[in-house]
């Protein structure tokens, strides 16, 4: 079963890369839209530092953080919730339920393919940015750091995908989930560290920020890569969030499926 699932997954990823590459211009503009927020944030914070603002992190850390943040955000993001909700609402889910392939395997493959296709275009963009800022960028050379970074990226992706399944599953009970999606996107942008490093937020909020799930989506992988010491408890918390959200998503999905009416199929 595992071998069949792996082969099916490979075929689905290949199919999605094919489809994504069919829409090259759309992909390019989508990627270009990811860059302005970190670049503007970087310029704002550099300006603030130049005016004498006291920042709780080193200037080099800030620059490296903002150069990498778009890449990490892209790698851990998931865009499945809207597709899943639509497939439930419009009846397309039926075509997955009558085939021996989970719609979630399709969702994961779709996300992985999207990242592969985007990486091809995004890496050169980030490289250009890094080249422009190379004097202030310091990246670790320890392979253990990069391994930890990779694990943190995977855990962050699981958290985001599980959240997407959870939100998408709401379509079993409500007609419209786009409001919830927008709220999640807003909250995740701030609490994940995508808009600004969590370290720059007020000290009184730091204990709460450290344990909330969105930290493990963007901030934590960058902390693993850029902070002097790797926070071991962070991996435990990230694993805990990933497991808890996956289990909750699985339960909610099953309950939803039990009452599914396959309207539109």
């Amino acid at each position, binding site marked *: 079963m595992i071998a069949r699932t792996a*082969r099916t997954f490979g*075929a689905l990823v290949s199919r999605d890369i094919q489809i994504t590459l069919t829409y090259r211009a759309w992909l390019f503009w989508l990627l270009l839209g990811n860059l302005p927020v970190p670049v503007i944030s970087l310029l704002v914070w550099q300006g603030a530092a130049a005016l004498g603002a006291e920042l709780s992190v080193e200037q080099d850390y800030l620059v490296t953080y903002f150069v990498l943040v778009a890449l990490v955000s892209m790698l851990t993001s998931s865009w499945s919730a809207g597709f899943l909700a639509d497939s439930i609402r419009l009846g397309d889910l039926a075509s997955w339920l*009558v085939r*021996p392939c989970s719609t979630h395997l399709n969702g994961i493959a779709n996300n992985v393919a999207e990242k592969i296709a985007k990486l091809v275009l995004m890496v050169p963009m980030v490289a250009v940015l890094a080249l422009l800022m190379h004097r202030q960028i310091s990246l670790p050379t320890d392979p253990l750091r990069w391994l930890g970074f990779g694990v943190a990226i995977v855990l962050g992706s699981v958290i985001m995908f599980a959240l997407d399944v959870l939100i998408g599953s709401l379509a079993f009970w409500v007609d419209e989930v786009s409001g919830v999606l927008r709220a999640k996107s807003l909250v995740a942008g701030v609490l994940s560290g995508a808009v600004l490093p969590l370290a720059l937020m007020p000290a009184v909020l730091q204990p709460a920020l450290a344990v909330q799930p969105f930290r493990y989506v963007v901030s934590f992988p960058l902390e693993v890569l850029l902070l002097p010491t790797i926070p071991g408890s962070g991996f435990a918390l990230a694993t805990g969030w990933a497991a808890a959200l996956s289990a909750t998503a699985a339960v909610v999905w099953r309950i939803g499926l039990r009452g599914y009416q396959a309207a539109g199929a």
Partner: protein
Amino acid sequence: MMSALSTRSHPGDVVVRCRDLTKHFRYHEQQPGLAGTVRALLRRRHRTRVAVEGLDLDLAPGEVCGLLGRNGAGKTTTIKMLCGLIQPTAGELSVLGERPSRRSFTFLRQISVIFGQKSMLWWDLPAYDSLLLHRRMYDLSRSEFDLAVGQLSELLELGDLLSIPVRRLSLGQRMRCELALALLHSPRLLFADEPTIGLDVLGKRVIRDFLARVNVELGTSIVLTSHDMDDVAALCPRVVLIDHGTKRYDGDLTGLARSVRPAKQMMVTFTAEPQLPDPLPPGVTVVGRPAPDVLQLDIDREWLAEVLTAVSGWGPVVDLEVTDADLDEVMVSVFDGFPEQRSPGESRSA
């Protein structure tokens, strides 16, 4: 001819067995307008609709069964329960020895579903890529896959269609590709929900001929729903008539037609206006007179021979045609006999 598409049927098995199968849907009711929407926000009124009630059905291996009924009668809900899409509210259901709603690999590997109004193909890719994906999903070896694709391409005359993005295909071409996809893994049981909807006469014929051949040569059992009575007549030796979620008839189509419209129809064309006897012979009713020299009659079967002899005495006959009632008219008569409004099946709760 279709050796690669073996369905591995087990003679003697019952393909579908359901007893007292029931499905109720719960939905909320909302009054129209802004006030109704606001009221629904504060207090929702729920209703329960009976979609299928106490359905008993057995299907033998290799059997083709047509589910008939008007829109909303419960046909599609029945198919959705049989293929595991929705869970029954009550009753027993076994399909190919499995409980469909568990959707095990063993079960899904043996069934296939064609939705006339929903594509199973990937819109942006050539149909061949969809076939490749199904190869992985259904765990087919390369040789099984190549052989099946070759045979399906030949039978459905797919030619170059498999290499064209699906969105560029006509509806008829797409349906042929849908059939190839559905049959690739040689299912033992095929659910076809309105497979010819929207197709022209030639397209319909290709689909019917193919399904008939799959049934005869592979022994694939087929459950078909269609509002096109020509589909049903061409494919289904057995029909099950469902109305308001309950089974109203289970038998062959001829039996249904005879029980509802027992009279034969006769169209007689004379050289001039015929001289009809007064009174008319027993068992004869004039139902129409499309032209002064043309008579349209309904004749009781038992009097048919006598009437055939008598007709030549009414005037010189140019043409004579005797038929059973048109199937669409039969269905109209069937539905006319059922009450339109559902009252006992619905309940309401706040």
